[in-house]
């Protein structure tokens, strides 16, 4: 994912605004105070760093068992059959091992 200067400006000021990607023309609809170039640069770096740091979460999310499977496995376990639950737990651990945190 590529963040734009507009993304950084929006993240900094919040509220309603409109503008082009490079942030050279922006309407601050809610009368926010425009951030400085230094603040925008710093926020852009923070957004990119945060996105990279969360890479493992996105990777895990796409390979974890589905919510439906988890719910069914939980119900079956409650009913006395834990085979599906054990399988799901093993799959989750494998995904966590594959995509380590940090």
């Amino acid at each position, binding site marked *: 994912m590529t963040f*734009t200067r*507009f993304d950084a400006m*929006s993240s900094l000021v*919040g*509220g*309603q*605004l*409109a*503008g*082009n*990607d*490079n942030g050279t*023309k*922006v*309407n601050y*609809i*809610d009368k926010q105070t425009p951030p400085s170039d230094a603040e925008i640069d710093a926020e852009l770096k923070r957004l990119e760093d945060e996105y990279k740091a969360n890479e493992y979460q996105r990777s895990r999310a796409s390979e974890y068992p589905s919510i439906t499977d988890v719910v069914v496995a939980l119900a079956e376990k409650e009913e006395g059959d834990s085979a599906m639950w054990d399988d799901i737990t093993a799959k989750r651990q494998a995904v966590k091992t594959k995509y380590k945190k940090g």
Partner: protein
Amino acid sequence: MPDLIIKPTNTSGNKLILQDQAGGAVLTTADSGATAANVTLASTTTFPAGKVNNVFRFSDTSTATLNIQTATVTVAGVFSFSATSGRHYVIAGSQYMSPYRYSGSHDRRYQRNAIYWGTTARTSLDTTVDTLIFAAWMGQTFASGESSEAPAFYAFSYNGSFTAGSTATHYVYTAISSNGADDRARAYSDATYPHTAVIFEVMP
């Protein structure tokens, strides 16, 4: 003064030929009707109603991508041209749009698109608009809130018409809005995704 009639003898194939100084035929009659050639029509010539008198073609590749995170109607792409009072203008255009979630978790992935016309100069990101031609929401609603961006991709293909009330530069433009700060509507006008339109000038 009675009518002056110049007419070839009444035999099939006979013509009346009007020539320019170079000897070129500029008006040649047939047994019925006539053919005009190499003729320049003056701007004051009256054309029949419904005739397409002019075609304005536009392709905007320079406004760049706009991000609209507001419910305020915001001008996205503007085309201007010289219009003549009383003539009709038929518009057809297309612009690539993409609504998505900007922040929070919600079920909205849609944006409002519209076209307007007026005689006041407008530029992208203006929040004052003129006469509405057409508007519609575009996108979808999820079954429940979703925190991913989940962008949608659409071509806003629009058409409409208006009659000029004055002879002046006229402006036809798209304007979009989202649901507010948590939703982002994107409008493209660049080399990869140009915003295009054709405007036909039709005689009244």
